């Protein structure tokens, strides 16, 4: 059936190998009908941004448990803006203390999901964020 699917890149930036969360989220997004481009471990911000552009993704989800979240979020958002792709939704999760979240949102992250967030919350949020983004395009 013809329809515009939500395409989302799920990536693990950096060297952190804990991918349980990324994989669970990827599956949940798939089960919600989205097309999930999964890039695997050890992605540089440049690779992630390039992937997002090549895949015409609506959004990119990044998972970081190594404490390097501020570095990667800012870098990825910055690169997207540089490529004139600041409209692409950036969201993520991992081991991220609450006190760091406002900074990430300010930098341009759409949402940051802490440990224990149900995947359904993440799915609903993303569906709405993509719908809003597409409404703006028209």
């Amino acid at each position, binding site marked *: 059936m013809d329809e515009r699917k939500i395409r989302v890149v799920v990536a693990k930036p950096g060297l952190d*190998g804990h991918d349980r969360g990324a994989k669970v989220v*990827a*599956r949940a997004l798939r089960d919600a009908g989205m097309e999930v481009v999964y890039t695997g*471990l050890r992605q540089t911000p440049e690779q992630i941004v390039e992937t997002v552009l090549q895949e015409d993704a609506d959004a990119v989800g990044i998972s970081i448990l190594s404490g390097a979240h501020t570095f*990667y979020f800012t*870098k990825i958002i910055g690169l997207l803006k540089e490529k004139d792709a600041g409209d692409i939704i950036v969201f993520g999760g991992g081991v991220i203390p*609450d006190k760091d979240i406002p900074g990430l949102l300010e930098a341009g992250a759409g949402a940051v999901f802490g440990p*224990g967030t149900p995947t359904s919350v993440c799915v609903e949020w993303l569906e709405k964020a993509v719908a809003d983004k597409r409404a703006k395009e028209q």
Partner: protein
Amino acid sequence: MNTEYKEARAKFEAGVAKSLQKHKERKESFSTGGGLPLGRLYGPDDVESVDYMRDIGFPGEYPFTRGVQPTMYRGRFWTMRQYAGFASAEESNERYRYLLSQGTTGLSVAFDLPTQIGYDSDDPMAQGECGKVGVAIDSLQDMEILFDQIPLDKVSTSMTINAPASVLLAMYICVGEKQGVPMDVLSGTIQNDILKEYIARGTYIFPPKPSMRLITDIFEFCSENVPKWNTISISGYHIREAGSTAAQEVAFTLADGIAYVEAAARKGLDPNVFGERLSFFFNAHNDFLEEVAKFRAARRMWARIMKDRFGVTNPKAQMLRFHTQTGGSTLTAQQPENNIVRVTMQALAAVLGGTQSLHTNSMDEALALPSEKSVGIALKTQQIIAYESGVTNTVDPLAGSYVVESLTNEIEKKAFEYIGQIDDMGGMLTAIEKGYVQKHIQDAAYDYQRSVEAKESIVVGVNKFQVREDNREMNLLTVDASVGERQIAKLRKLKEARDNLAVKNALEDIRAAAADDSRNLMPLIINAVRSYATEGEICGVLRNVFGEYTENIVL
């Protein structure tokens, strides 16, 4: 089983069935956290098949179900070993000395990710990662600082290092040299378990074949030169963290163990000898009874595997000795203080399961690296269990419990089924390559996530009994962002000061030997480390010769 009992039990069951019509139980069916069905009541008939001498035996005797020591904790407590390390060698050294002053009895070094994956701090891949999840080590110089004023002949040190384990072990040996401690006095453990990196943890570098060779090189070198060193810590911990069940944790860990024994035997090493230096590392999760049973089952299974499969007769090489860490994935970011309680129960399960050493997680680890205060509480938890709970005063107190013995049997049965399937596939390397292991773990992880979201599994503070809160006020540890820069500056100075010709020659020697399977790389790596070749330089040469691994995704 006598008839009187059988009749009485039948009568009891009938009575329960009747009352169930009026008062239902909380759930239709009950199961363990690992998904094993759990009955309402266990009795003598549930352990009818158990033969005490064959299946349980005495502590310190085959099949070691009751423990590896005859007196267990009446003789000596487990080693209280807290995994720690962050920022630079200087900061971590300070934390280690604090821990030692607080009564910790063994060190456990956490390295940062660039170190774990063989990159120096000045590598582009290391950007943003230096000192984040552990200490940044680039060269012997850092290692000297890390163990400054810590006598290597007095402490035992565990290092969570896998793909570049040879390099870090070589550095430790060289620090010993400088302190005047000979190799054969050093005691400790390197994790050195690459298979679970492919399966669950992700800090691999090289493809399986050369990785296995590095591991068996270490086995060989240490059995001759560092006899008190545990050359591998075969780890189920990360498999469990990635979402496996308890039975899978045991199965896949022991299957990894089988692969290592086979590889070493192929190299001509005697399992009766190197078998003594194999150690294991398990997770202590929430389901208390299942976890106790899991440890007991793992011990019995390994003894049987070593004896029946590899013909090992040396009891010390049949024993499964293990380290335990409480389950990191069970910690909640919500109401972090509750984690103290979770950790206590998990630690108790590990002790009742007969662990040889233990790391208790700190309550704030779902949010950040632990602060000094929370590390202190975690360590005190172990001390309270050791000194106050009383469970340490008799050996294997839960033996003979109908349910514990039944679950021990169940886990053994289930785990041997998995191992059988892996054998049929041609062994663990093939099973990993085909994604069999990863698939099972990911399915279990996804099932668990769904059961939490459907509230079939309850996590206090997360999907029930939530309170409004904010952890913004918590005093979390933050890693100084300048670690990377400081490390880079140190590296620059080091490269100016060292004998670069010696480094170049040492690296070329490694390159040549790497291409020749019959040579042992360990002495050459020690030589390179001694000349202050950096970890990144050594791993870079090996990357050139061995190539790099790409993960096998199964979703």
